[in-house]
């Protein structure tokens, strides 16, 4: 069997890193539909998966891709798809299917300029709220936003782990720049990576398909003799559909609760000079790298500014933002969109929040962020 990526240093791009990270994370099934700028993930998967005894299929569309990876996961394979905005829109319904059927899987949404077809080859960050509220009904999504090639690799492994731990589709909201920029990728020996293996239900388990009293129950997988029913309708613990509001309440509180209760374990962020910051910049993905540059220069000018970078966009790093709001009088949220993540920041910080709207299509100019920082100190 051809091995996974050899340990070492690579000059690689984000798409390469995500693909190889997924394979380390245990991905053995990929279904997708080509779309700029994530197509390289699909192409590389088509070459790599068969060598590892995995399976690759190029589906007829993104709707089918999302359905196929949920199907594959229910048949026991760790699965993934990769897309960009237009495809991600098409996947929303079946992301909801993954949520209600508690099926682990990973979805890469490499954000590009929108709306609609937008500029396929250029960056955007306009899907941030779609990763949160895109699928109908209440849900508690887990979304990661890597900002480097190294993090693209590491976070994909973590995304697979989270998918297994919390049994739901996990989204990686990368962007066109991170997907396509090349820089160093250091790969450690395989045994140094924690990979969560799927916990499977035993066929003689007396319990139902789901459990609403435990956060985690091992998953039943087709063909193992469990003979259970998995339903996209609101269902009870046996997996049987129900029209009762009480069952909906029980199920939904479990689906939301398993993420909410483990928020502290899931939430990840990086901070740069935040401790004493009077003004805090909040930025994610490629924008965070421009923001870091701006913060660095502003500090040299004596301005007490810090950078908070959410790595998990969702669940929202609520507790930490509230804490920072204790000593920060103002937040600045630069994004490659017209104001999305700024809303929860404003809501949870209850502080003055400036928005910087970078139009999709280009890497943000850090000078603009710097000017805004300076403005906040005037």
């Amino acid at each position, binding site marked *: 069997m051809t091995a996974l990526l050899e340990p070492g240093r690579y000059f690689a791009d984000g798409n390469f890193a995500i693909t190889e990270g997924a394979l380390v994370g245990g991905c053995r099934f990929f279904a997708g539909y080509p779309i700029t700028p994530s197509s390289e993930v699909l192409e590389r998967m088509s070459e790599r998966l068969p060598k590892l005894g995995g399976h690759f299929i190029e589906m007829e569309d993104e709707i089918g891709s999302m359905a196929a990876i949920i199907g594959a996961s229910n048949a026991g394979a760790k699965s993934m798809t990769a897309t960009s905005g237009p495809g991600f829109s098409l996947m929303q319904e079946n992301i909801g299917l993954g949520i209600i059927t508690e099926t682990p899987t990973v979805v890469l949404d490499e954000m590009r300029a929108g709306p609609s077809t937008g500029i396929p080859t250029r960056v955007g960050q306009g899907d941030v709220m779609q990763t949160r509220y895109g699928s109908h009904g209440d849900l508690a999504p887990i979304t990661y936003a890597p900002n480097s090639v190294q993090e693209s690799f590491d976070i994909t492994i973590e995304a697979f782990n989270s998918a297994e731990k919390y049994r739901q589709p996990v989204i990686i909201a990368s962007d066109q720049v991170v997907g396509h920029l090349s820089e160093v990728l250091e790969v450690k020996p395989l045994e140094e990576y924690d990979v969560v293996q799927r916990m499977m239900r035993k066929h003689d388990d007396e319990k139902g398909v789901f459990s609403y009293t435990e956060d985690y129950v091992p998953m039943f997988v087709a063909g193992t003799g469990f003979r259970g029913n998995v339903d996209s309708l609101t269902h009870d613990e046996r997996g049987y559909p129900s029209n009762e509001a009480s069952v909906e309440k029980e199920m939904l509180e479990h689906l939301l609760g398993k993420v909410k209760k483990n928020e502290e374990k899931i939430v990840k962020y990086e901070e740069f000079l935040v401790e004493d910051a009077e003004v805090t910049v909040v930025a994610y993905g*490629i924008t965070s790298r421009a923001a870091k540059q701006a913060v660095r220069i502003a500090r040299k000018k004596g301005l007490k500014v810090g950078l908070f970078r959410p790595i998990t966009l969702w669940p929202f790093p609520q507790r930490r933002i509230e804490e920072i709001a204790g000593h920060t009088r103002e937040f600045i949220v630069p994004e490659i969109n017209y104001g999305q993540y700024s809303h929860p920041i404003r809501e949870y910080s209850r502080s003055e929040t400036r928005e910087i709207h970078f139009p999709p299509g280009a890497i943000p100019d850090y000078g603009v962020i710097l000017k805004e920082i300076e403005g906040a100190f005037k």
Partner: protein
Amino acid sequence: MNLGIRMYGMGGQGIITLAKLVGEATLEDGKFVIMTEEYSPYITGGWSKADLVISDETIDYPLPEELNYLVTLSQEGFDTTVKELAPESTILTEKSLVTVPQDMKLRSIEIGGIEISKSLKNPKGANIVLMGAFSGLTKIFSAESGRRAITKRFPKYVDANIACFERGYEEGVKYGR
């Protein structure tokens, strides 16, 4: 040290490959490097370009502060980028495709990459000739690292490409300072 390099060409000339090889070789030499790429929506016939930032420290912002080098295989690349170059910059062009104006203030070196690659019976290797020339000229990465990067990337066509690289290197060294 913080250098900005732009590579520019037409789709199909292997500009992105060239930039990746330069990046890979520079990384081999223990430096930090980041590369962003951009291309027109047309698969062939359009333009493509890559910007590299090379530094001794980790790099946050992926775009160059200023451009110190331009490597171009197209006139368009020359015309659009020349205005953006920092003073004291160096330009490396493909002789047969780019005409450098007489009154050019910046240092510019013309290499006949296409001709050389054809003479070495590797007509697709013009970008590799320029890679060699860039190494010889700037010493930003060593010839050894360049060879290693090529070997890694083209395991099936090592010899033909190394030949191009080395001829390019010889040309570049002539102009080296």
